[in-house]
């Protein structure tokens, strides 16, 4: 046995002969806020559909709570709440009736409706038809619906899609508070790294159906170590000079950079450049953002 709350093994989905999701091994631990990142069309939603049993995998296995999804779908889904892409709602009904329709299927006590409404702060508008709601309110109702069955795993696909900054902030705060207050594990997908960065504890990055990075957010941040860029006359010659002097330096035909190093080492490097008659224009720290890494990992085609 392992302690993964959700685990996929070689998950593959082919649509029209093309692998939309390819050999995906996703792993989530209890209590994680797992940020599932990737550019549009990378296969995020397809993966989530398979996790929820809405689509059948071409190959591979899904285990949730240690149970095989194919065989024990009902038992698994009882403890999973979901919001896939844009929210589903019945526009002609009000929020309470919407939740009641789902509640009748789940068979949870009626008091849950008031509880989840207060979690997403919709109590005041609960008696209005949902078609008059703003997108942010509909998203919150979607999250309330997902929370109704007291799930242990919450799957949210792009919950901030199409929201304005205030709405995004609101949803983000709500999601961040959930593991604390409701004790759920959350899988949240997005194509916005900046979003995930502020919520997730663990990150999986997918592009063209393949998982290219999966680790804690801190490991991803470590990759974002800053570099020091040196502006210098004749950088190529300067680079060779630094290498000859036994220092680490990189020259990518545009800029000369050195990895982060102790102050003395940097000073010594500059001194050696000056000594060999290079004109040093700038010595500047270049902080690589997570977005650069994301673009780098996804091959630069990701929309951010």
């Amino acid at each position, binding site marked *: 046995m392992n302690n993964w709350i959700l685990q996929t093994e070689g998950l593959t989905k082919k649509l029209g002969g093309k692998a939309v999701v390819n050999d995906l091994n996703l792993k989530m631990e209890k209590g994680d806020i797992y940020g599932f990142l990737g550019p549009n069309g990378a296969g995020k939603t397809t993966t989530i*559909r398979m996790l*929820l*049993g*809405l*689509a*059948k995998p071409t190959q591979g296995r899904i285990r949730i709570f240690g149970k095989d999804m194919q065989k024990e779908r*009902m*038992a698994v*889904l*009882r403890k*999973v709440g*979901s919001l*896939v*892409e*844009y*929210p*589903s*709602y*019945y*526009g*002609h*009904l009000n929020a309470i*009736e919407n939740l*009641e*329709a*789902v509640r*009748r*299927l*789940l*068979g949870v006590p009626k008091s849950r409706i008031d509880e989840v409404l207060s979690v997403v702060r919709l109590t005041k508008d609960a008696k209005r038809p949902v078609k008059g709601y703003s997108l942010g309110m509909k998203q919150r109702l979607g999250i309330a*619906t997902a929370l109704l*069955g007291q799930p242990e795993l919450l799957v949210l696909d792009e919950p901030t899609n199409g929201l304005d900054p205030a709405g995004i902030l609101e949803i983000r705060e709500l999601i961040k508070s959930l593991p604390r207050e409701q004790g759920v594990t959350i899988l949240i997908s997005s194509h916005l790294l900046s979003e995930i960065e502020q919520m997730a504890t663990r990150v999986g990055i997918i592009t063209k159906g393949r998982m290219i990075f999966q680790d804690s957010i801190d490991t991803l941040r470590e990759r974002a170590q800053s570099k020091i860029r040196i502006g210098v006359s004749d950088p190529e010659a300067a680079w060779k000079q630094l290498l000859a002097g036994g220092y680490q330096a990189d020259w990518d035909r545009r800029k000369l950079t050195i990895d982060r190093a102790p102050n003395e080492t940097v000073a010594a490097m500059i001194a050696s450049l000056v000594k060999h008659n290079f004109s040093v224009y700038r010595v500047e720290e270049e902080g690589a953002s997570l977005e650069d890494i994301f673009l780098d990992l996804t091959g630069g085609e990701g929309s951010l």
Partner: protein
Amino acid sequence: MIMRVMAAELLKIRRKMIWFLVVLGPLGVVGLQAVNFGLRYDYLTKQYANDLWGGLINNVTMMMVPTLFMGLAILASMTAGIEHQTNAWKQTLALPITRTQVFTGKFLLSVLLLFCSSTLLIVGTVGLGAALGFDLGDVPYKHLLELIYYPYLAIMPFIALQVWLSVLMHNQAIPLTVGIVGTVFSMFSNRFDDWMPYKWPYLDNAADNPLFSVAAGVVTGIVVLAAGTLNFVRKDVK
């Protein structure tokens, strides 16, 4: 479990004009017969002098079958449309209920709504007869119930078919076209032999036993429902 599904389905059709349609169907049939008998009262009461109630019931059921064909197509489309509108399928199917239950729920909802319509038609027919001054003591209840519930049972394959089409297709124009063309087609179905399903609800068969039509309808209805369920269970949800 299926009771829970039905409870949820009944909640979802609130404020959707669906109940209005359920009433409108029988009301329309009774209303047209009221006009028919109102305008030609003397002629018709003379013609049916021996069996006033029987004449009325025959006139009602003649109009009822096409109305039933039309109504079931519209109801199936409207009840499926509730899910299509905001693609609520993905929410419903990610809940811990089987797809068989979801599909059967939609089917049973249409069956239930049409049962209400049929029952209202019985009430309406008796009411119309009374209003026309027919003797309420003479109502041939067995005959009346048979002539209304038998077509309702014989039309099961088409309820299953329309629910299947409406659930499967996002674009409701196709199931509705099938339903409307089917309604018109059914009116000419007496040209065919007894194998023709569109003929069954008219209870017209060579053996002259309406129960044959009912049996064929119910059995075929179960087969179509099973086929639709199988198809729905395998389908990936968008």
